[in-house]
């Protein structure tokens, strides 16, 4: 039992070392890859713009559910007017970055991992190497940068749509005066709350993008290998997001 645990621990350390080395290699190729900004812009579009529908749809429903649950809770204390504050703080500081990151891992992360994995399986990455083009510069770095630029933008959109969803429930359904709803929200939300969500979204963006490109780049060049890499991307990203969220929340409080 103890041997197995020690073996798992050493495997974990080896993997952490490999990911760190990979991250350093990607960071080293970040500036060279930005010399052709078209590559990065394309990836911001792929990871960001193409995730907009799912992010906005989920943001709306999360905001509406939050509105219903928070209204029910606040009504017990006669504080329904604080619905906007509760929803805005919950979304900006916690739900927005975490749920956006989880959705990002499921949509853009899997797409990144499978795309890079398939490029490896069909010799496209090797072909680049043979043409003296570093695939880390041409393929990996733009996707990594695109991912972590897209994440805060998507989080901001998720937050806005989420607050709008809560407003639909609070103001349109539960008849809370719109003036009360918005004035309380604006007064209660501080720049610190927005910063907390912003920093979280950047950290999650780096983590999700790194996991996706690492798993894709290092996947076995087979159909099964690419499938496994895609699965590992979602699982690792989800666990990492929640773990990092705990650490960051503890730091901010």
């Amino acid at each position: 039992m103890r041997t197995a645990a020690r073996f798992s621990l050493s495997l974990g350390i080896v993997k952490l070392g490999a990911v760190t080395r990979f991250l350093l290699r990607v960071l080293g190729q970040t500036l060279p890859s930005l010399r052709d900004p078209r590559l990065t812009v394309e990836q911001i579009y792929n990871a960001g713009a193409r995730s907009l529908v799912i992010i906005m749809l989920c943001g709306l429903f999360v905001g509406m559910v939050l509105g219903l649950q928070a209204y029910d809770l606040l009504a017990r204390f006669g504080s329904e007017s604080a619905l906007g504050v509760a929803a805005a703080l919950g979304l900006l500081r916690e739900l927005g970055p975490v749920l956006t990151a989880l959705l990002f891992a499921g949509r853009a992360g899997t797409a990144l991992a499978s795309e890079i994995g398939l490029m490896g399986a069909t010799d496209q990455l090797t072909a680049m190497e043979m043409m003296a083009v570093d695939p880390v510069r041409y393929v990996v770095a733009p996707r990594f940068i695109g991912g972590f630029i897209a994440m805060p933008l998507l989080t901001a959109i998720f937050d806005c749509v989420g607050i709008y969803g809560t407003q639909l429930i609070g103001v349109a359904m539960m008849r809370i005066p719109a003036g009360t709803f918005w004035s309380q929200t604006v007064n209660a939300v501080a720049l610190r709350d927005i910063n907390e969500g912003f920093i979280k979204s950047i950290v999650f963006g780096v983590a999700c993008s790194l996991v996706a490109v690492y798993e894709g780049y290092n996947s076995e060049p087979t159909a099964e290998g690419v499938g496994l890499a895609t699965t590992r991307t979602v699982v690792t990203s989800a666990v990492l997001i929640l773990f990092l969220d705990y650490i960051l929340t503890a730091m901010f409080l």
Partner: protein
Amino acid sequence: MGWPATVRSRPAWSSRPLDDRVGRYPLSARPEDPGEPLINVQDVQYAIGSHTVFSGLNVRVAAGRITAIMGPSGTGKTTLLRLIMGQVLPQAGRITVFGEDIAALARPELYALRQRVGLLFQTGALLTGMSVFENVAFPVREHAKLPESVLRDLVLMKLQAVGLRGAADLMPAELSGGMSRRVALARAIVMDPEVLLYDEPFVGLDPISKGVILRLIQSLNRTLHITSVLVSHDVPEISAIADYTYLMSGGKVVAEGSPAQLKSDTSGVVQQFISGAPDGPVAFHYPAPDYFTQLLER
């Protein structure tokens, strides 16, 4: 009459220093022995895990010739190309290309060397997100700053050479196997390499496509004086174009010489390979326990 070796044409946009552009070898790495081959594989040993791929492999590729490397499937022919390109390193022995030890090169030097060597992949390995035109233009865009009009002409010329100028706007998914291979060939020659490595160029092609590829390899070698290394197990095709042939088996070279010399070789391995006999020194069956004993086992 071809170009004299010292003024052999190199792309004008080559980033190598001037003194490096005037010969087959960079001046800094010009072999001391003028007879030294362009590619020299010396006593190479290579294993993947416990499986020995090469044990004491020796191959010499002379400049300007078509050298064929033949052998049964699984003898490591593709691995040899990966070793020559520095994608993997041998556990022992030495591989030199243009007189430079591949294992001693840092990544930038290795990339500089790879710009002088083209590799045609067995699968073509075209970049699926780009059109045929963009695939062929890709190495030039990455390594040279050419005006778009010049680049366009250059790419169209290379596509014309492989007969696919009309397919410039197609995507790789719209191409047949033979067309993919020809586009990959156009991409491999777009930087005017000094050496072209072909990995199983005839596999899975119909007779017409085979003939086209065969003719292209020959004409590239004769008109552009490109040194060619062909990895294949297609005996008739190799016999038609190769100047020198190596036959590999069991991790080493078992016979070498011109195709005619190999044909007249009486050794069992050579005759089995050339005649395509199912059994012989190269066993048809993978090592296994006795057939009947295994069937009767419960």
